[in-house]
């Protein structure tokens, strides 16, 4: 009887250890594989980061970032080389095309997660980086595309860094040549192409500079007339195509003549101009659902006896907002 008991126990024990997928051994292997994958992905991110800064990564920089001892770093690099992710040239490590694709995938996962955590889970900005770092390793390409679509294809993370597209493009100098820009739409100069040098000189001589807000006021096959509100700039189309522009953060423009809603005094009417750019995701949808759309008339009607929150009459209904929320809605007093 005793023998039977032990045989039984040993068989059950062996099964528990070796059974595929759910056995202890399988779980351990899985765990190790996950760890290894995280390490590779963190290494890829470091390499991509270095490349974008125009610097080369070395075993030292990699070991420093990942906090790995020398021997392990060397083994990691060898592993990644056999997987075809990196190439070593002397002391420099370079991403291969395959390695870059994977690195961009991880960066995309990280930044999309940040967007999600900030907009939908409404986590404080200080916490989102660490949380996103924990989650960036777990999503497949298809899941990431779903997340991207669910978030409405955001282009930047909450820190303002660009999110790689699904094709794996990282729009560094996002924006387009002004020749592709539609007239009358205000634009901000985000990049001045310095090749060919002659065109670049002309642009500088005309007085255009990076960060300037401009508008196309005339566009013919022979020339472009740009204006920043004070001066006009005339350029040949070939020269103008060296100016890369992007949309102004729209609210930026509109905020100039507006005040935050909480500054409206009692019964003073205002017209909503814009919602602050920082309000995205859930909170923005909520504002819009309540009818706080640009062009809407709004005025404060009720005040809490501590002064905050106040209730505003908008579209015939009464909506209470804390001062913090009212600061994110910009209105033009009338």
């Amino acid at each position, binding site marked *: 009887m005793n023998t039977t008991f032990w045989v039984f126990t040993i068989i059950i024990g062996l099964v528990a250890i070796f059974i595929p997928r759910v056995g202890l051994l399988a779980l351990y292997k899985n765990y190790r594989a996950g760890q290894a994958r995280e390490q590779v992905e963190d290494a890829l991110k470091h390499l991509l980061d270095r490349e974008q800064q125009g610097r080369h990564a070395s075993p030292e920089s990699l070991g420093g970032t990942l906090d790995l001892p020398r021997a392990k770093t060397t083994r990691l690099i060898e592993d990644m080389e056999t997987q075809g992710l990196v190439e070593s040239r002397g002391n420099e490590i370079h991403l291969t095309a395959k390695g870059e694709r994977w690195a961009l995938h991880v960066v995309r996962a990280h930044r999309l997660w940040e967007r999600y955590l900030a907009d939908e889970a409404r986590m404080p900005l200080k916490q989102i980086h660490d949380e996103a770092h924990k989650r960036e390793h777990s999503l497949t390409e298809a899941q990431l595309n779903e997340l991207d679509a669910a978030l409405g294809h955001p282009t930047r993370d909450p820190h303002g860094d660009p999110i790689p597209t699904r094709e794996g493009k990282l729009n560094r100098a996002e924006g387009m040549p002004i020749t592709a820009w539609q007239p009358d739409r205000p634009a901000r100069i985000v990049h001045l192409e310095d090749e060919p040098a002659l065109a670049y000189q002309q642009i500088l001589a005309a007085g255009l500079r990076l960060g300037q807000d401009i508008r196309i006021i005339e566009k013919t096959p022979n020339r472009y007339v740009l204006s920043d509100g004070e001066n006009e700039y005339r350029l040949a189309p070939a020269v103008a195509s060296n100016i890369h522009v992007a949309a102004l953060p729209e609210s930026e423009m509109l905020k100039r003549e507006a005040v935050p809603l909480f500054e409206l005094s009692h019964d003073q009417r205002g017209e909503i101009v814009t919602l602050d750019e920082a309000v995205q995701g859930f909170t923005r949808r909520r504002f819009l659902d309540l009818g706080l759309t640009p062009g809407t008339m709004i005025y404060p009607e009720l005040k809490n006896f501590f002064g905050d929150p106040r209730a505003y009459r908008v579209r015939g209904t009464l*909506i209470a*907002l804390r001062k913090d929320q009212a600061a994110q809605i910009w209105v033009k007093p009338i």
Partner: protein
Amino acid sequence: METIQPNDVLAKAESLRNNLSTGFRDEIVKSLYSEAEKIAKRAVKTSSDKKYDFDQKVDRLVTSPIFGLPIMLILLGIVIWLTVSGANVASEAIANLLFALGDIGRNFFNQIGAPWWLTGFLWDGVYLGLAWVISVMLPPMAIFFPAFTFLEDLGYLPRVAFNLDWMFKKSGAHGKQSLTMAMGFGCNAAGVVATRIIDSPRERLIAILTNNFVPCNGRFPTLIMLATVFVASAFPAAITSFIAAGTVVAVVLIGVVFTFLMSWLLSKTVLKGEASAFTLELPPYRKPNFGRILYTSIIDRTIFVLWRAMQTAAPAGAIIWLLANIPYGDVNLARAIADWLNPFGLLLGLDGVILLAYIIAIPANEIVVPTMMMMYMGAGMMIDGPSSNAAIFDLLVNGNGWTLLTAVNLMLFALLHNPCATTIMTIYKETKSWKWATVSVVITLGTAFLVTFLTASIARLLGWA
């Protein structure tokens, strides 16, 4: 001829998306609203502004610096007084009826010669537990929930959230938490479910974890018994119900203070974070629809809560009967456990019987008082206690060594102690996490122990007890 494939459309959309301005979603909503406005203008005729002016006047009054808070307190007092005094009569009637039915059942079992333990277990244990919970719980809920739903339907409750939001903001919570607290008077489990109206996860958790600091209907009887025996006995009999209600209101206010404190503590520690967006609609005042009020409050709330309580009351009744009837040395098991708990109870200014009653009453707080009475009077089943207040006073103070400190600390303990089993289950269901359910127990029980221990120690140091 070239045919357009679905993928071409997707690709086109993909390429066009980059040209969209960032605010295109705002534009879409804006156009939806302007379309809706056009339709409304065509279809809706407004004849006068009278209603609007009236609403505005009422709003000015209920949110005014002078009258806002008093109006709120008076309404709260009225609702609690209605509940307390109305329930008293009804509870007694229901109890008499159910106990009479129990007697019939017991006699029947005796006649057919069932063994005493079967009769006792079924009729003095399970049935009595059920009868007690129904008679104690049903009337106050049947009064409180309609009154609450009435205020809700009227449109007054959002104004309460508006008035109190400032304090909730200070403690890192959401103004709508006041509504879930109001719901908690009826039933904490219902209050926990009601936190769904808070859309930020962090602030919703705060509301869930602190909801238990609002005493529910099931805990009113303990408070009322103490209030009538220890406080109201000093006043003329005519105003007893006002004194009882007043005491309950005072205890409720202490609970509110603890709610703010705990919310603040939570948002400084485990639930760290910034106050998230607060938006609250203040709907126009409406004439309440009484049919709907009765339906929502009785069917959706009262019956729902009662059914859940009954499921836990029956086994609790059985356990109480077993404890009271299993001998242990010279005494029964209940007495033995109570004696063992006694030193700890005394440390908190309570006693062993009270602690045991609260342990047994985890499924349903309604049976705390009858269980205590059972043990104090040495009975074999839950009982009502002496009929007059003076006799109860005599039993507790002269018979079982109670002091004023015991009464005060029992009130505090009744206010602050752990949620009942139903509420714990509800917290688990709402948060999908045993961690948060455990946290809710730990923080409430911890607060209860700490506060009663402190009051007892201070009272003893100063020589009051």
